[in-house]
């Protein structure tokens, strides 16, 4: 792998086995310099292990790992130039908040005055400047996590690895910290990998998103690509609420149909043609619209008739849960003052354009 390609981090068919258990398998990943990559996945999907392997805390059992073009598999952690924030955000109990943040800077042998300034900046960014003289045991979990984040970012490493950096933060702090992270990332031109279970605050600031499941990379791409065209139902569900209907495709004359449980038949757009017979029909809640029968016929829409089971208030959007036989569908509608908005228990017809439906592997 050449450094001239502008690739900061490259993993090729990387695998990690711990205690005879294969945690990661065949991971291929290239992260260009200056990219902010968010790695999403459920618990035990291998996100933390991936970051630990890159940092050198867990050895690769197979594959290759390059940082700035250099093979770092045999390089010690402390020489890899990757600063990692651990999931449990440990702070050294014998050092104050300032002392903790100073640790990474102490390695760089910078002047005390410069160091002090950088500590103050780092703490100010995460809103912890007023706590700089406190001790770790005097802080709440949320505060400790922000100090750990400041400590990692203050080190100014070429590669930042953040494992669940906002897990204990409230929604307001999450958004603020995410914006700060994006800004800092742009200013410092570092490369950042963030592992998280919930990508709500992180996906908006990501350049690319990777989804891990069961130790395998499911899909890697821009947030929009993963949201609109997920490769499988894991990715579809990870990227947000999805309507997923199990069934199988069949050809009737020249038309392709998707037959789901309860005799629900969905005519498919040509672009949705797929190889497997069994599969999952996928579309997003915002693709569904309330329609009348005439409009549906006129616009050649796929229609579902169902009863409004419950309603979720999401601020600017109202999310409806519809029961169509055994199938549950989600529909997002922009909030309005229209008195005709569906109500709970009401029988309504909803439709979507056939090209919005994708058939995913079963």
């Amino acid at each position, binding site marked *: 792998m050449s450094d001239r390609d502008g690739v900061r981090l490259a993993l090729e068919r990387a695998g990690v086995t711990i205690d005879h258990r294969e945690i990661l398998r065949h991971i291929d990943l290239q992260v260009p310099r200056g990219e902010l990559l968010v790695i999403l996945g459920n618990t035990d999907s291998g996100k933390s292990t991936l970051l630990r392997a890159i940092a050198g805390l867990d050895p690769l059992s197979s594959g290759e790992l390059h940082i700035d073009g250099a093979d770092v598999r045999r390089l010690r952690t*402390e020489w890899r130039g990757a600063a990692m924030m*651990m999931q449990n955000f440990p702070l050294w109990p014998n050092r104050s908040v300032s002392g903790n943040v100073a*640790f990474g800077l102490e390695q760089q042998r910078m002047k005390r005055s410069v160091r002090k300034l950088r500590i103050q900046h780092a703490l100010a960014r995460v809103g912890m400047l007023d706590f700089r003289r406190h001790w770790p045991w005097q802080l709440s979990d949320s505060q400790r996590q922000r100090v750990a984040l400041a400590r990692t970012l203050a080190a100014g490493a070429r590669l930042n690895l953040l494992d669940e950096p906002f897990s204990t933060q409230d929604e307001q702090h999450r958004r603020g910290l995410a914006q700060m992270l994006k800004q800092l990332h742009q200013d410092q031109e570092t490369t950042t990998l963030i592992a998280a279970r919930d990508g709500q605050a992180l996906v908006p600031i990501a350049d690319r998103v990777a989804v891990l499941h069961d130790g395998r990379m499911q899909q890697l791409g821009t947030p929009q690509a993963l949201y609109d065209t997920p490769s499988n139902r894991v990715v579809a569900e990870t990227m947000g609420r999805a309507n997923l209907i199990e069934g199988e495709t069949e050809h009737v004359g020249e038309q392709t149909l998707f037959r789901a449980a309860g005799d629900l038949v969905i005519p498919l757009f040509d672009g949705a043609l797929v190889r497997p017979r069994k599969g999952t029909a996928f579309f997003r809640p915002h693709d569904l619209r309330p329609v009348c029968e005439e409009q549906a016929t006129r616009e050649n829409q796929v229609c579902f008739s169902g009863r409004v089971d419950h309603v979720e208030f999401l601020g600017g959007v109202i999310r409806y849960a519809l029961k169509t036989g055994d199938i549950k569908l989600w529909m997002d509608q922009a909030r309005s003052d229209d008195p005709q908005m569906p109500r709970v228990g009401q029988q309504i017809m909803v439709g979507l354009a056939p090209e919005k439906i994708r058939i995913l592997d079963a």
Partner: protein
Amino acid sequence: MTPKQPSSWKRVSVTLCLLGLLALLVAWPLGGLFWDVVPTKHGEWEALRRILVNNDLQESAIRSLLIALTACALASILAVPLAFAAVRSTPLARGTIIALGILPLFTPPFVSAMVFGRLSEVLSDLGLSMTQASAGVFDDHLLLILTYASHFLPFILFSLLIRLTTIDRSLQETARNLQASRWKIWRTVTLPQAAPAYAFGACVALLKMLEDVGAPLMLGHNDLLAPQLLSGLHLGSEQGMRLAIAAALVLFTISALIVLLAWHPLSRATSSTATGKQPLRWRRGPAMRLVSVGLILAVGAVSLGPLAWLVVLSLGGGTSGKLWPTLSAHNFTAALQSALPSLPPSLTFAALTGVMVMLLSTLAAVLYRPSTRSGRSVRFAVNTLFAVPGLVLALAYWEMIGQYRESWPGITLFALISVVVLKQIPLAQHLFNGPLRELRNGGLTSAANLGSAASARSLGISIPTLSGAMGGAFAIGLAAALSELSAVLVLLQDREIPFAVQVYHTLRTVGQGPIGAALGVFLAGLLAAALLAVYAQLRRPWRQAHPVNRQTANALAEMV
């Protein structure tokens, strides 16, 4: 942050009872002992001054302190690298180190001293004098230093090992990620975490060395502080008693100063930050492996050597300057016959002590709450017991119960049990730190939130969780009572009960050496059983819960 909590009246009243009991059993006798030497007339001041500035006493104090410090340093030279090697080595190597490390505790110091003494005699006859090796720096105290260093090595080793295994591995990993060198990580992360544990082990060892009389007497060193106290008492005269009290005052002052200097590590429960993961292990090169093997061999020699030599002595070897004259198991039969009558009362005394240690240490541990004043008072009172040498407390009891000894013989046994129990409580209460932390970190609150009644919480959660530590405390009391010599020599003097005194007297009787050694083997067996019981108890219920528990339990179990 720990919020301040109000104390319930029940808790406060139990706390007051415990504090009252400690005042009654410790402060009163000690106050009475030292009050007696407070002069009331001009002439008495002069007499006290003469005793305190007595050159012999001053020299004894300095000599005792120097010997204890040297032995402590010597034990540390082996124990500290051993603990670091154990925590980073394979489970098999760690198990070997732990198994070897616990062996010195199987023999009381006076038995170890006898073993070293006989070994030195044999080596002298072979032309290899051990005392000459000290190049005259410690005259002939080298054997005593070696005895103490080998016997108290486990205190430092296990105290440090527990802490090292419960340091959160991610603290070190984070430092590595921030480009810190190994040296920097050791200096800034590991050392600050481990230093209090080392200080704890070293201070406890130091205090126990200072108050020990068995080993110096066995090696014929009457010029130390503790033996001087005993010989002053045994003089039987008023002058002798004054000397004993003066020695007690100096010993108490030195102990109190040590406790004062090491108050933080002695009094505070080290907070476990363990995440359940194995401690950080560096990549081990051939040099590291070689060092580990060397350390295991060294601890093997220090631990197994004296025990093996004790067995050889009990078989009749090592006598008359010859290594193997005639080995015979006959000594064991003779020893068993002489030991049998004293065993039942000794075991009863040990069991009583164990029960008392268990009850009082449980009470002290449960009452301790850092957020309440009453809780802190209990911990403070219990930890101040570290500063009271058992020998001094025994002397205080001897003085206090003087006139009742004849009319009520049972009071001496009560005094003896009190001394042994009170000396074990500060150590035993540390066994409860782990389980209590788990209980208070949510176990009890969750049960209360689920509507469980107080009695059900006690029966279903608290007692099962604490049972391992309670069993451990019982076994610690049992082991302490079986090996106690200092307090027994003060309070019971020439009696053959408990068992340790019988072993001591037999070993000091001319011509009875092999039988004494065989009795020493029996005593080692009893102590081994008691200490293994502590280990087994600590591995019981609450270790099953989750990895953090299991690791802390293992660490605690390793301590004993």
